[in-house]
């Protein structure tokens, strides 16, 4: 094959791959906008006459407001807690002289790898004992523990990436240590903080396993728990199911497009240096 022909084939393969990756997402969104008669058909309709009926139906399900509020509340609180504690820890690790730093990093690494799926039974028992079972704070606690290691790891990387010389230069110009950090390093940290915060939010927003086990009363469900039971509750109303899925996915998608570069870097920093 000639060079040009081979290039064309490679590009064609890439376009096929892109179609395969995007199709399920496209199909979810397109189904969500279809009127019922374009869903209930053997020959699929690829470009629908759009309608908002399915969204109206999804949103007007009983308790939808509760689920949305619960999800935002849980994910928001998790984000706040993880960022607060994570930032304090990361600054300390990156900027202070500390003995046992390596040991602490090992602890963070272990915590990051803790198999939460295997800790369901003890967490369930603890939450029952302290009276948090079927209460939203139980989810916040579990998600906080779950996201903290990554938050520390990622923020530490971002802070270490900002040369301390900058702060010292500001101190020469008369700034206090804290002042130098707040005025010089913090603004540079903005993007890193946002990326990490989004990661925490998405993790808590998406989580299904613990929410499914811990929340027994309908009004305490988070969106994923509701979504999983949606299909069974509505029979096979795929239009409304896809509309609900689309609504649930939308914020995640927007956030992801904004920060995906940093997420790749954050998870495998250093591994490329070889």
């Amino acid at each position: 094959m000639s060079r040009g022909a081979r290039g064309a084939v490679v590009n064609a393969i890439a376009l096929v791959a892109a179609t395969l990756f995007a199709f399920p997402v496209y199909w979810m969104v397109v189904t969500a906008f279809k009127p019922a008669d374009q869903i209930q058909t053997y020959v699929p309709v690829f470009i629908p006459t759009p309608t908002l009926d399915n969204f109206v139906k999804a949103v007007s399900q009983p308790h939808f407001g509760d689920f949305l509020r619960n999800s935002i509340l849980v994910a928001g609180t998790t984000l706040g807690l993880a960022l607060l504690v994570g930032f304090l820890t990361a600054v300390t690790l990156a900027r202070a002289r500390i003995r046992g730093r390596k040991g602490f990093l090992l602890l963070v690494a272990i915590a990051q790898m803790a198999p939460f799926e295997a800790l369901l039974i003890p967490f369930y028992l603890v939450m029952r004992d302290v009276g948090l079972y079927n209460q939203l704070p139980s989810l916040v606690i579990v998600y906080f523990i779950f996201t903290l290691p990554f938050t520390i790891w990622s923020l530490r990387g971002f802070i270490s990436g900002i040369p301390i010389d900058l702060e010292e230069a500001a101190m020469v110009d008369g700034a206090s240590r804290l002042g130098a950090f707040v005025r010089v390093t913090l603004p540079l940290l903005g993007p890193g903080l946002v990326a990490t915060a989004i990661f925490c939010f998405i993790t808590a927003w998406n989580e299904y396993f613990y929410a499914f086990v811990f929340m027994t009363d309908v009004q305490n469900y988070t969106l994923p728990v509701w979504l999983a039971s949606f299909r069974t509750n509505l029979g096979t109303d795929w239009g409304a199911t896809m509309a609900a899925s689309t609504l649930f996915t939308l914020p995640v998608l927007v956030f992801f497009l904004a920060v995906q570069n940093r997420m790749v870097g954050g998870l495998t920093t250093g591994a490329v240096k070889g």
Partner: protein
Amino acid sequence: MIGSRMAKARRDASGREGTPSRRRSRLVTLASRSIPYLGLAPALVTFLLLLGYPIVLVVQMSLQHIGLKELISGATTWVGTANFTRILGDPEFLAVTARTFAFMAVNVVLTIVLGTLVALLLHRIRRSVRLILSVAMILAWAMPALTGSVVFQWLFDSKLGVVNWAISSLGIFGSWLNHSWFETGFSTFAIITLLIVWQGIPFVAFSLFGGILAIPPELDETARVDGASERQIFWNITLPSLRPLLLMLAFLSVIWDFKVFTQVWTMRQGGPDGQTITLSIYAYITGLAQSQFGVAAAVSVVMVALLLIVLVPYIRLMLRTQEDV
């Protein structure tokens, strides 16, 4: 650089000035030295207490008999290793374990191999096509596991699913209309694997693409000048350079796919006929549905023990790569 040297000089000077009383200054340094440790305290408490206690508890529970009665009365009956001998002698548990391993292995191999291929693809295509493929992959990657599962059930719906229609209209395989994908365990697993691999490839591909870009281009060029074929370049230059990254991604995939719950559970709740029950689902059913908390804890402990085989080298690798940061 100059700034830092000056700041240092300033620090030294001020340190020399302010020492009226030795004991007081020692107290002050002690206090100021311990302040950084206070910064670590909240995280330390979180890890040791909030995470450590459940870990200790799961081991403790695995050595006890805990049913609904004990859960309410709070009585503890130690049974030694009875829970472990029970599950290890239970053919169902062994079958579930073997199934979990097979499922994990297939997922990991597919994710890594296809992810590598996509990374190589990303490296060779035109810029505009690369952008299209990247956006498509971000869509798949961003999809929450739960919605992924719901959407795949719709794609593979027996009556109105678009996949059955597509296969049928190809005309090669005959009519697949009304074909039910969730009738056998194998077929159900195939859909779950498809879902997991679809969502897993982007992260692997993006990471490896980054790795490929970090390989100095002179290496490839020299080899090409020396007459190496594309295949030789891949096996002798690209792959060895990517080795640490590939290893890390493989470890991560093993960890994720071994304990995956959401996709497997929401697809068919372990059905048909319990044929897609994996270890995390087995632990959940034994514990929460059958109220055999001691046995479920033992299952969890076995799960963690199996995971440690890959966790330990992974954490060592991760710390080694972090050292020079």
